[in-house]
């Protein structure tokens, strides 16, 4: 389980997280919604130790991330797949080489690396594009390649950073289906951050809303739809006022 415990983070004078607490239960997909720039991606980066909290912390399987030494942090990162908003593919490598990058750190036999790479690319429907470079494929394909790179590691957790941003509605719906299928087939615990409400309701077992650095509301999709909280309602309904 991932547990955020009174997390505080500021950049200069800007307070981004101001006592953020949330439990991400095993085996479920939790969606974190919130306005652009509200700190959703910052939360994900704390889980893998890319950012250090100013106060509070994140526990993964009961271990405080910012207290881990280098070897322990590497071991933790091997259990977590991170799907970046921009895909963050290595642009000097083909899609297949991108997928192999994480596997190369796991001291697996070459046959295992090849088979996992092929499986991951097949899972996201990119077997035919394995030899192409990121610059030669569409944004949606890049995102799927980023997913393949994450799931090839067979992680316990997958962190999805705005998986549908910048995609057309049809490709977004395809991405939602891929996320659900990935969670079901691999049995992973997922934490998705997004401001795409259609996607949030489609993939989330639980939805939490981040507002002013804290959790404003948390519950199932139905509960969030039925909430009377004006801030949550305004965000869900996309009303400017």
């Amino acid at each position, binding site marked *: 389980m991932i547990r955020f415990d009174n997390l505080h983070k500021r950049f200069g004078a800007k307070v981004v997280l101001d006592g953020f607490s949330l439990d991400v239960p095993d085996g479920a997909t939790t969606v974190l919604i919130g306005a652009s720039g509200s700190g959703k991606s910052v939360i994900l980066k704390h889980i893998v130790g*890319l950012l250090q909290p100013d106060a509070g912390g994140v526990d993964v399987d009961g271990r405080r991330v910012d207290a881990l030494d280098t070897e322990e942090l590497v071991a933790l*990162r091997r259990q977590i797949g*991170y799907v*970046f908003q921009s895909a*963050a593919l290595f*642009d000097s490598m083909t899609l297949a080489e991108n997928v192999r990058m*994480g596997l190369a*750190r796991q001291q697996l036999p070459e046959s295992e690396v090849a088979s996992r790479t092929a499986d991951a690319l097949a899972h996201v429907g990119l077997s035919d594009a394995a030899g192409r470079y990121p610059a030669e494929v569409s944004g949606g394909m890049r995102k799927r390649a980023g997913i393949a*790179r994450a799931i090839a590691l067979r992680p316990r957790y997958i962190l999805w950073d705005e998986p549908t941003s910048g995609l057309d509605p049809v490709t977004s719906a395809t991405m939602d289906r891929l996320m659900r299928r990935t969670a079901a087939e691999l049995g992973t615990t997922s934490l998705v951050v997004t401001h795409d409400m259609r996607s949030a309701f489609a993939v989330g077992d639980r939805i939490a809303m981040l507002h002013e650095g804290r959790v404003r509301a948390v519950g199932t999709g139905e509960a969030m739809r039925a909430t009377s909280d004006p801030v949550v309602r305004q965000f869900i309904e996309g009303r400017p006022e």
Partner: protein
Amino acid sequence: MKSAREIVSFIGGAALRAWRSLRDVGTWSPLLVGQMRRLGVDSIPIALFIAVFTGIVLALLSSYIFTGTVPNYFVGALVGKTIMLELGPVLTGMALAGRVGANIAAEIGTMKVTEQVDALETLAYDPGSYLVVPRVLAATVMFPVVTALAIGVGVLTGWFTAINLLDLTTLEFVKGLRMFYQFKDLWFGLIKAASFGLVVALTGCLRGLATQNGAEGVGRETTRAVVIGCEAILALDAFWALVLL
């Protein structure tokens, strides 16, 4: 104002991270040869281009200075000494500070702003081992190689200019060249070149990793890397002259 304890802690932390990255041989060693080719071999044309004209100008200048005062074969001495001790390493270093420093800073900076550096970390790679060590080692090894070639070409074009434009014979040029030559002239220049390679590549890597704010940030840090690299070369040049001469 940072306290002494914070500064010591920062330096200690940086040294520890550098040591950890260096020990991760399995990560950086497969990348080393590629970086040596990219940063070193691919830089040879620009270094030789500069060396050709340096040799020509030095021969003409020394003839202008010496004519009527000292024997003409001193042209060989001045060309050889100056290129080996100073102009070969420094001009090559400056040119490579532009080419190599900018290349490294822009590449790593772009990786930083497109989250590729974060992706490396989430895939359990140490960016120091994967990005910094192979580039710094490659530049430290290859700058002296490129500089040695530049010195050779500079002396050759100096000789060619002397025998064709200055009424010197090959024997006279070589006599001057050998008259004040010491083995130290060569290794002094090559040690300087190695230190230039180290500092140029390290600056490029650090500026690249410090990049923020998209394309504008990449441009800013790339410029910084080149400027700091050139300044560091001049400071190191003075340092080595003070220590080794």
